[in-house]
């Protein structure tokens, strides 16, 4: 039986989706839909995007469910330019604390949780911003996995480029138009340090070591357990990268997977810092 905290109020609250977009209007439409679902479920919803707050509220009014939510005070809007100075590098832990506080406030005000749709494009324009924001996305995903908060994060693929969006998308449990072949995220099923889904191969060669470093994997003793039941493929270079990570951090990484080939590769290549366990 999951505990109350693990389960959260309902499964939809576990959404944390990355949405790469090429047309801003397209993102707004998806944000309306995402937020309207939250309103229907009794959540407080928050829309964060560039522009002044009047304009942001105006974008949501086009959807009558959001319009109704605005009227009764269930919808909040925040201007990303007003909240952050240009070039600010996000403080991952501080940002998660703010959302944790907002989630608590929403619950105290009688809502079932907090749902956020945010266009974060303007916060990831430099390499340092991307690095910090990827770490934040991972940290907040762990928070969302255990609390009644959900989020849709929008990134402009045309402006940022596919490679940058993929760096952010791979830290989410789910991505639409995110261009990432794998996901390393916080929605682990079994108390593991992280969950890993998708494919690790040539198309994740650059992304995978970055994601491992940014995921802040928690060790118990000197062991890090990754719930890789959603892993569909791993080639030998990805496992060598995992072993390198483990050696650099002086830990053993346990990979729980349904796949048979990772164990063979680990044995063939004598990767002593990685242990493969068969997941049920």
């Amino acid at each position, binding site marked *: 039986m999951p505990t109350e905290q693990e389960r959260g109020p309902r499964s939809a609250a576990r959404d944390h989706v990355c949405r790469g977009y090429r047309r801003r209007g397209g993102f707004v439409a998806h944000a309306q839909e995402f937020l309207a679902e939250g309103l229907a479920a009794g959540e407080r919803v928050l829309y964060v995007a560039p522009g002044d707050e009047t304009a942001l509220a105006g974008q949501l009014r086009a959807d009558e469910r959001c319009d109704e939510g605005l009227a009764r005070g269930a919808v909040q809007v925040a201007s990303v330019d007003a909240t952050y100075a240009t070039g600010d590098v996000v403080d991952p832990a501080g940002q998660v604390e703010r959302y944790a506080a907002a989630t608590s406030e929403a619950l105290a005000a009688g809502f079932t949780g907090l749902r956020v749709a945010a266009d974060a494009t303007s916060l990831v324009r430099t390499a340092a911003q991307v690095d910090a924001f990827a770490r934040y996305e991972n940290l907040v995903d762990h928070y969302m996995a255990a609390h009644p908060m959900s989020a849709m994060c929008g990134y402009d693929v045309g402006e940022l480029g596919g490679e940058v969006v993929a760096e952010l998308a791979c830290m989410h449990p789910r991505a639409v138009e995110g261009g990432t072949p794998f996901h390393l995220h916080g929605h682990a099923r079994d108390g593991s340090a992280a969950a890993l889904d998708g494919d690790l191969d*040539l198309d994740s060669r650059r992304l995978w070591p970055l994601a491992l470093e940014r995921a802040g994997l928690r060790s118990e003793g000197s062991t890090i357990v990754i719930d890789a039941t959603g892993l569909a493929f791993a080639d*030998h270079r990805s496992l060598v990268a995992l072993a390198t990570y483990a050696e650099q951090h002086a830990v053993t990484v346990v990979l729980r997977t349904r796949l048979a080939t990772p164990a063979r590769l680990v044995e063939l290549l004598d990767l002593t810092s990685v242990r493969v366990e068969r997941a049920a």
Partner: protein
Amino acid sequence: MSARGYDHAAVHYGGDQELLAVAVPFLEGGLAAGEPTLVSMEPERAELVRDALPPSARVEYLSTSDLYARPAAAIKSYRELLAGFVAGGAAGIRIFGEIPSAAIDTSWDWWARYESAVNHAYGEFPLRSMCAYDTRTTPRHVLDDVARTHPFVATAGGGHHTNTGYVDPLSFLTDPRPMTRLPIEGTAPRAELADPRPSDARRAVLATAPVDLPAAEVDDLVLAVSEIVDNALRHGRPPVRVRIWAGAGQMVVSVHDAGPGPADPFAGLLPADRVVGGRGLWIAHQICSEVTLHRDETGFTARLAAGRPW
């Protein structure tokens, strides 16, 4: 011969007595010198040798079905075994062996490469080994390769001669080798992919896998194909073409690119730390039922098999 370094000799025999006339003195010499002395032959001839030796002879018999499933695996196992003997203080080691006739008949290409590569792969060990070939049943082209891959020839009663036909592995392994078509390659491929990503190739293998090929063998082939396509995309030259054949209990996948193939002649048989692409090819050699490498004027082809495509 000095006991240092690898002494790799071929034995040609036409009957049991000829075989024993070479094997028995060789093995007895090893036992007399207190060396680890091993036989790795198919059961019938292992029994023949056992019966010809005194009951007290401390010869170790290795199972050929385990050891000779794949050449790259044989090299890995033998190297571990030999390193263990040396660590235990052995100054000399003797092995009398044979490559199983089924392997000779179905997948000689990679065993020919094995016979050549071991001159390098076991070079650091104080090993004397003899590889026995039955001249009554071994095909001519195989005996030709045997003559080019063994620096010595052993004969009855302890005869040990330099083989003038021996070719250095660096030459043997880079010479063009014929690619014998497997029967299924005479049929239309089930899929053909142009410049696929590794994930495209994996999906195509899964989508065409025959139901009677065990899932574990399909998984291994998927991994091997992914590694080889990765190599072709990163180290080969475009276009990369993948063709997939599937039939009852078998799959064959060829990956062709327009480049010259790996520069390391030992690629596939030995794990290469330094050589680009060497590990992917070595992994394929460890998990496929056969890997054939081929170079011609159009480029480099790696052909990977699962099941029994013979």
